[in-house]
């Protein structure tokens, strides 16, 4: 072993790496919010009695869950060029991750809604609550409990998946690391440091989610 560890370039680049980590978080949070919202709609779509929303939702879910994420990113970055649509790296990555998250969360939501028995709905309606009041006060709060931990896992998964954004030219945490690596050739040091940053982010998100979940769901169990 004659490889000399040299950490100084890493420390020098740390501010940039931290900035890139923030970009990673930003991309992940935005993708998560969009993905969750669309996922909720898709879960309604899949249970719709109408053919068109049901079919479109099913196609979305199937494609999102059964094709590689990298392929999805490439599709939005390069694939749309055929149709004259050119998305920036940032928009393409957010779109792809939202697309993917929506597909996974739609299935999670569907399971969540199925877990709430129909009798809850009847009890609520029998009290004079409207459909929307029933959703808001009875159904959604219970669905949130069921989907909360799968949702947390998906969020961490999105953070890690966003590293593929590098391949579409996005200078998020991995992209930035690769940039410094190519300038300094301190490959091991940079990738080790970045691995630690990813690890810390994932752990912090997990702990924050646990604490938050414990605080909001401390009461009754479903």
């Amino acid at each position, binding site marked *: 072993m004659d490889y000399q560890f040299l950490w100084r370039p890493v420390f020098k680049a740390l501010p940039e790496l931290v900035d890139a980590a923030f970009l990673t978080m930003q991309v992940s949070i935005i993708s998560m919010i969009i993905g969750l919202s669309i996922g909720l709609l898709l879960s309604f779509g899949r249970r719709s009695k109408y053919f068109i929303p049901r079919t479109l939702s099913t196609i979305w879910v199937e494609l999102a869950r059964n094709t590689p994420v990298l392929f999805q990113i490439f599709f939005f970055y390069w694939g749309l060029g055929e149709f004259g649509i050119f998305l920036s790296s940032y928009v393409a990555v957010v779109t792809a991750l939202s697309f993917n998250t929506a597909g996974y969360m739609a299935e999670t939501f569907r399971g969540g809604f199925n877990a709430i*028995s129909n*009798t*809850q709905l*009847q*009890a*609520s*309606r*029998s*009290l*004079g*609550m*409207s459909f929307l*009041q029933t959703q808001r*006060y*009875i159904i959604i*709060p*219970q669905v949130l*409990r069921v989907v909360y931990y799968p949702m947390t896992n998906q969020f961490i998964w999105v953070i890690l998946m966003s590293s593929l954004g590098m391949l579409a030219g996005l200078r998020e945490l991995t992209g930035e690391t690769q940039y410094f690596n190519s300038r300094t050739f301190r490959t091991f040091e940079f990738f080790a440091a970045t691995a630690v940053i990813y690890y810390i982010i994932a752990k912090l998100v997990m702990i924050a989610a646990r604490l938050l979940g414990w605080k909001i769901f401390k*009461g*009754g*169990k*479903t």
Partner: protein
Amino acid sequence: MIELKNIHKSFGDLKVLKGIDLKVKNKEVLSVIGASGSGKSTMLYCINGLEPIQGGSISVDGVVVNDKATDLNKLRQKIGMVFQQWNSFPHLTALENVALAPRVVKGLSKNEAKEIAAKQLAHVGIGDKLDVYPSALSGGQQQRLAIARALAMEPKYMLFDEATSALDPELVGEVLDTMRMLASEGMTMIVVTHEMGFARDVSDRVAFFHEGRVEEIGPAKTVLSSPKSEYLQKFLAKVH
């Protein structure tokens, strides 16, 4: 007054109610008995519009339930319902379970709603469980919670769909006692039940359902002690 005129109800091809006529006067307690599948629950669900009907008409205090123009959410405030499954809302405390509808449906303030809820929970004998979640209550307590939740809307009518049949035998009594108390307070009630003792002692009239029809109806004691219909005789022989 609740009035059902020749109502017909099917699920797809399955005809479940085949011309039901019933009148329930104010302050009356009507028990409904009959074999499984005879349409007892379905009839209750039709009365508060949870299930649509295909023929005939149902009116509650003159308001036609099966009229498209009727505001069912408003009508349902008048008609409390207690189900076989204890469907308390698991994510809310006992107090919140009861206070929710008065607050969001009637628009009462949080405090007013809580006051009513506490009063109703005490009324059904679980006034010491305000901050407890349903998962920590026994089946009997959950069923009383469901009764309190319905009562908090100050309904004029109460529908009970086999409120005790999912309970352990030792918990049945406390729920029946609560229902007895309501009856003695003058609540108008339609009670679908397998408890013949309750039907005989508490209700004014008993209706026997057979295959989607009212096979026999009359004063509780008459119907139960000298049944005319052969089906009812067989049914009573089986449950006794």
